[in-house]
């Protein structure tokens, strides 16, 4: 069960039970829905962006512990960042969760997001971890259509 504990780390379980920034953002400048049609996980991401700065970000919706905690930690990470910083965070996050299983892929400066490094050992769950991130990336690219992981 060791690698299960790698996946379901304390921080992940805490954020799935008590997600942060889990509310509607009334003055959002951009709202995008993310959906995994295979499992039914569904989140709405709210962003308040002015110029190049992400002033605020929040989310609502339902899904598994991995997708919800990922969305929660993402909102904490992106608040106050610039759009180009957010893109870099997306790339960093994506590279740890999609590393080949068994590889000892290291990414520096991940902060709290390092907690998701166990996800790469569970290929079936990579899409859970990346759902909110894909959604926010689409939002930052100005896409308003719902994002689907399929």
């Amino acid at each position, binding site marked *: *069960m060791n*690698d*299960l*504990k790698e*996946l*379901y780390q304390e921080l992940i*379980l805490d954020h*799935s*039970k008590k997600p942060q920034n889990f509310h509607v953002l009334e003055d959002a400048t951009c709202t995008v829905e993310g959906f995994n049609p*295979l*499992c*039914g*996980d*569904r989140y709405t991401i709210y962003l308040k962006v002015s110029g190049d700065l992400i002033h605020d970000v929040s989310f609502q919706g*339902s*899904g*598994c*512990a*991995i997708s*919800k905690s990922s969305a929660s930690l993402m909102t904490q990470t992106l608040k106050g960042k610039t759009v180009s910083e957010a893109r870099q965070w997306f790339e960093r996050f994506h590279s740890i969760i999609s590393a080949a299983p068994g590889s000892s892929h290291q990414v520096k400066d991940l902060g709290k997001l390092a907690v998701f490094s166990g996800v790469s050992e*569970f290929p*079936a*769950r990579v899409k*859970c971890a990346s759902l909110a991130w894909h959604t926010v990336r689409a939002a930052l690219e100005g896409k308003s259509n719902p994002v689907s992981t399929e």
Partner: protein
Amino acid sequence: MKGVKTEVFKQNKREQFKFDVNRYRKDFPILAEQIYGKPLVYFDNAATTQKPQVVIDAISNFYEKSNANIHRGVFLLSQKATEAYENVRKKVCHFIHAPAPEQVIFVRGTTEAINLVAQTFGRMSVREGDEIIISTMEHHSNIVPWQMIVEQIGAKLQIAPINDDGDILVEEYKKLFNSKTKLVALCHVSNALGTVNPVKELVSIAHASKVPVLIDGAQAVPHLQVDVQDLDCDFYAFSGHKMYGPTGIGVLYGKWDLLESMPPFQGGGDMIRSVTFKKTTYSNPPFKFEPGTPDIAEVIGLGAAIDYLTSIGLEQVGSYEQELLGYATEILKQIPELHIIGEACEKASVISFILDEIHPHDIGTVLDHEGVAIRAGHHCAMPLMERFSVPATARASFSFYNTKKEVDVLKQALLEGVRILK
């Protein structure tokens, strides 16, 4: 747990019903596999069943010794392949008690069977403003093909509701009929809840209004003896891979008059009587609906699966599965956080459940690590999930090759999941 099936189970228990599960487990090579170093406990039978050696052998033997394209071949090998293919049609006919083999059409699966009826019978009989009745518990494969046709035509779907146990509300269903009702499409057994619908009664209600009925039997054929003449349904659809046969093959049964009056679904070779550039005339059923080279090896595999199931006996299979269902229901209810979704009067061996505060996907991952394969998600029945106000459920579905010991493994794995995730 109530109802007829339970009665059978009790009766069998009284008679010291013995089903030698270990004898049959040996027929399935995959059951010896290990997952993360633990014995595979396969509880995703409602998604697809495992294949016995006889089915695997039938397919490889066909390719090794008898492969040729069927129909029209003058050489011996082709004639043998044709005979083997057509023999399976007779087997299917016997298996579902159809009146004649010509009423058995080979398709890719239940989904294709339903689409076939929607696009042929549907287009022929449904007009603007007409109505098609389905139920809340349908699989997407018995919702979307009808949605597509009603959108094309300007007709509409009527939905027969269910109660909290997962039983169809027969009185409400009755009220849906009117002069605009052109077809009813219902599942025999619900894939997500396990509910066994009172199909005979539902068909007779529809027939009282002269409305034909299609039954999605995908989840029924592996568990119950199906008699399409007794049910009196107009169409019956099922898949090979959910009844121990290969993927890529399924069956559509239809009443002769309907099949004869329906236009072809797809055009091509093997479904024609004659072709000129001015006009093509079509073959009679079933060939009218089987254009192109069919899935010959899969048909042969389906035949082997029918022989295998018949040799054990569906009554034996059903009784044992009811015993397992009863045991699993009792055992799983001992977990305080667990709630079963769907406790219909009569159920097939399917248990859908949710755990307080724990998402079914997370439970699925933990169980997988214990070697236990279950399904977690919406089970292609999103409207049904909405009816029960859950985004998803976990589902354990049992086959006659599963054991009580495996159910105990499931329970232990669930307790471990609760410990890790709660």
